[in-house]
């Protein structure tokens, strides 16, 4: 007579076996004292395990709760400090933004006025030093070749709703068009 393997007995002891398989084990156990003894050991170990490892003690539970709440309080204070630091940083940025556009507009207004001045004398030949003032990169090659700088033809203000204002300047040279964004950035085509 072949015995039930201890692995299967271990499953049977904890009711972890499919019903038909458990039925076959039960059939065998009726006639096998050795397997019944093994089964009793499995069941006893399980009972001892259950009775031996009880619930946590009250003072241990209190300790865990205290530690959790303490850590959460610390985290909350830490988050509070971080939020303060962020608020201060945001305030500083806002103040800087309030001051910065004023300074920037002053810088922009100067070249803008200079351009207006040249318009009052239409088609006037801009002297070379004036061009680098308006757009520092324009005409550098021409300077090297000792050619006359292009003269201004038209100046128009392009602006989009809520967008940046751009001063467009065409010159006598169709290859040189100056686009001047009033936040100070200059582009050249």
């Amino acid at each position, binding site marked *: 007579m072949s015995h039930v393997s201890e692995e299967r007995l271990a499953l049977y002891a904890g009711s972890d076996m499919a019903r038909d398989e458990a039925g076959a084990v039960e059939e065998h156990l009726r006639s096998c004292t050795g397997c019944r003894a093994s089964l009793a050991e499995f069941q006893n170990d399980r009972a001892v*395990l259950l009775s031996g490892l009880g619930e946590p003690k009250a003072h241990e539970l209190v300790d865990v709760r205290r530690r959790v709440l303490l850590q*959460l309080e610390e985290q909350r204070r830490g988050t509070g400090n971080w939020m303060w630091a962020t608020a201060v940083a945001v305030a500083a940025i806002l103040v800087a933004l309030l001051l910065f556009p004023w300074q920037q507009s002053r810088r922009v207004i100067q070249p803008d006025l200079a351009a207006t001045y040249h318009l009052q004398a239409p088609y006037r030949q801009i002297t070379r030093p004036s061009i680098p003032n308006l757009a520092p990169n324009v005409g550098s090659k021409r300077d090297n070749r000792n050619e006359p700088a292009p003269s201004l033809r038209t100046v128009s203000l392009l602006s989009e709703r809520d967008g940046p204002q751009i001063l467009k300047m065409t010159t006598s040279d169709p290859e040189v068009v100056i686009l001047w964004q009033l936040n100070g950035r200059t582009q050249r085509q």
Partner: protein
Amino acid sequence: MPETNLLREFIKEATAGDLQAFERIVVLHQSLVLRVAQRLLLNGEDAKDAAQEVFIRLHRSLGRFQQEKDFGPWLYRMTVNICHDIRRRRKQEISLDGAMEMFDLSPSAEETAVLREQRELVLAALGELTDREREVIVLRDLEGLSTAEVAEITGSLETTVRSQISTGRVKIRNHVAARLRRRSL
């Protein structure tokens, strides 16, 4: 699981930042979390560390619990995972003396010294299992969860869990039987 309506209220309030509501959630579940941690780690201080970590992570994750039925499995899974991490980090042998003290194995007046000895042996055997075997034995035999629930918590197949349960029980039985034979000689 504790009353679901109550729990739902506490979760809602705690998610809104009410620390007292969260404390009530801790009170409702601290016994489960610490008990499982003690049985998995067999070390009182490590178990407290694990339980603390579980509740801190729970606090961070409160918003995700749309249904209370997700709460129990999540707690078990988190406890098992954190205990697993702690065991891996510390890599120390389980000290049986600490475990004996934690579980207070002394028998009551009507119990016998034999029972105490058996408890010590079973506890020692539990300490000799692999982490995964101990996890499934604790969840199935001590927590009374079904094989399907254990599989869900450990992220394994049911057949794998059954195999691990079987191996664990056989190891415990063999360990206890061998020690008892040795003492009787």
